[in-house]
């Protein structure tokens, strides 16, 4: 079947191209899309190459203090340039694929694919990210990450829309990401967990990856901490235990080739306790709560 290759030079042209051909598949780093094409899993009407749209590769600090990160900023640059302000997301980015993949892969691509196993999603959820999408017909929509993921590889993005950027506040407290996999590189998460402390609001954000049909927050676990956590004391072991339990209950994992549902549920609880402990140690001491390595 014939396929077209569209190469808009501007964002406006990209939106017009997407509106004219809703079946066109956006391609940025290609690290997901090209695998599907190489293996003939997916044959879109057209590839819509976004590499030439320069503004997608930029990030800025906006008036309200939030960062607006273009959908085309590759993981390597995210780590190098924003690792201090978005530490949870940078930790997750470091676990993506390999150096070559991180040089091309983007958060925008992760969002577009909306795989429950995508590494960006848990820290985006924990850090209250908002996804900026746009269409030629209806303009910009701002979608909170918690409302973006609708099902396995399904998102709130409409067929005439493209992902422009994500917005996120620089970390106001410690953030950590943890991921289970068979080795330290080239691993799709068996499951993952992200945590972000928001000390100003006496609140903790969470994100669960690869343990439900979509990435999701552990809402009951967050509410429990908002009610029970004593921010001026050491971490109460009973609070920690219950937090892990509630995080685990928030997952609804399945058995698949990478792991069983039982294992995933257990691991989410362990990672929830671990990441909260790291974050709490850092919050109380001012030093990283986890040794590098």
């Amino acid at each position, binding site marked *: 079947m014939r396929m077209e*290759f569209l190469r808009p030079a501007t964002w406006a042209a990209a939106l017009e191209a997407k509106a004219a051909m809703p079946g066109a598949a956006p391609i940025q*780093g290609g690290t997901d899309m*090209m695998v599907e094409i*190489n293996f003939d899993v997916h044959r879109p009407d057209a590839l819509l*190459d976004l590499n030439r749209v320069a503004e997608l590769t930029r990030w800025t600090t906006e008036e309200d203090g939030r960062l607006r990160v273009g959908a085309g900023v590759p993981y390597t640059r995210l780590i190098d340039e924003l690792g201090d302000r978005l530490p949870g997301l940078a930790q997750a980015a470091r676990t993506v694929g*390999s*150096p*070559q993949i991180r040089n091309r892969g983007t958060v925008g691509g992760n969002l577009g694919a909306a795989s429950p196993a995508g590494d960006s999603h848990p820290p985006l959820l924990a850090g209250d990210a908002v996804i900026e999408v746009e269409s030629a017909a209806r303009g910009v929509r701002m979608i909170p990450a918690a409302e973006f993921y609708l099902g396995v590889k399904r998102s709130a993005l409409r067929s005439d829309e493209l992902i422009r950027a994500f917005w996120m506040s620089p970390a106001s407290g410690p953030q950590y990401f943890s991921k289970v996999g068979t080795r330290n*590189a*080239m691993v799709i998460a068996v499951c993952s967990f992200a945590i972000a402390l928001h000390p100003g609001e006496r609140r903790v954000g969470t994100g669960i990856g690869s343990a439900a049909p979509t990435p999701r927050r552990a809402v009951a676990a967050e509410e429990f901490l908002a009610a029970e956590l004593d921010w001026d004391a050491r971490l109460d072991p009973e609070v920690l235990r219950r937090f892990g339990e509630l995080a685990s209950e928030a997952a609804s994992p399945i058995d698949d080739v990478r792991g069983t549902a039982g294992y995933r549920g257990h691991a989410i609880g362990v990672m929830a306790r671990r990441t909260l402990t790291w974050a709490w140690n850092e919050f109380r001491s001012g030093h990283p709560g986890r040794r590098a390595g």
Partner: protein
Amino acid sequence: MRVSFTVNGRAETADDVWEGESLLYVLRERMGLPGSKNACEQGECGSCTVYLDGVPVCACLVAAGQAEGREVRTVEGLAEGDRLDPVQEAFVECGAVQCGFCTPGLVVQAHDLIERIPRPSDAEIREALAGNLCRCTGYEKILDAVRLAAARKAAAR
């Protein structure tokens, strides 16, 4: 479609490129540059690593059309005439090559590492090469080669 870009300093053009074709396919099958290897076509092995605008990428995951107007450097472009790059020399001397299938990708990736970090630690070498699989050597001699190449390049600076 027609695709034109610079490869190893030379302007190249390929015609009748299928829209879903990878940069790797165009290099190997249309431009006569079979150095970059095709082993997995899914970004898992690193044997197709090339520089795209100075950044190492898996050529199997770049759509050929995305390379339009850009600069590609492959393993064929590392040597200067008959003089191998120090990374290539070190791979030969250390016995870091057995079947050789992984070698071009490893050489390009190691070349980039030493450009960015002239004296990499072992941890940095392992991290940089984590996306390049070798089923023959067991990696130890590859690590030796990268250490040797880094030392030689540092001495020559």
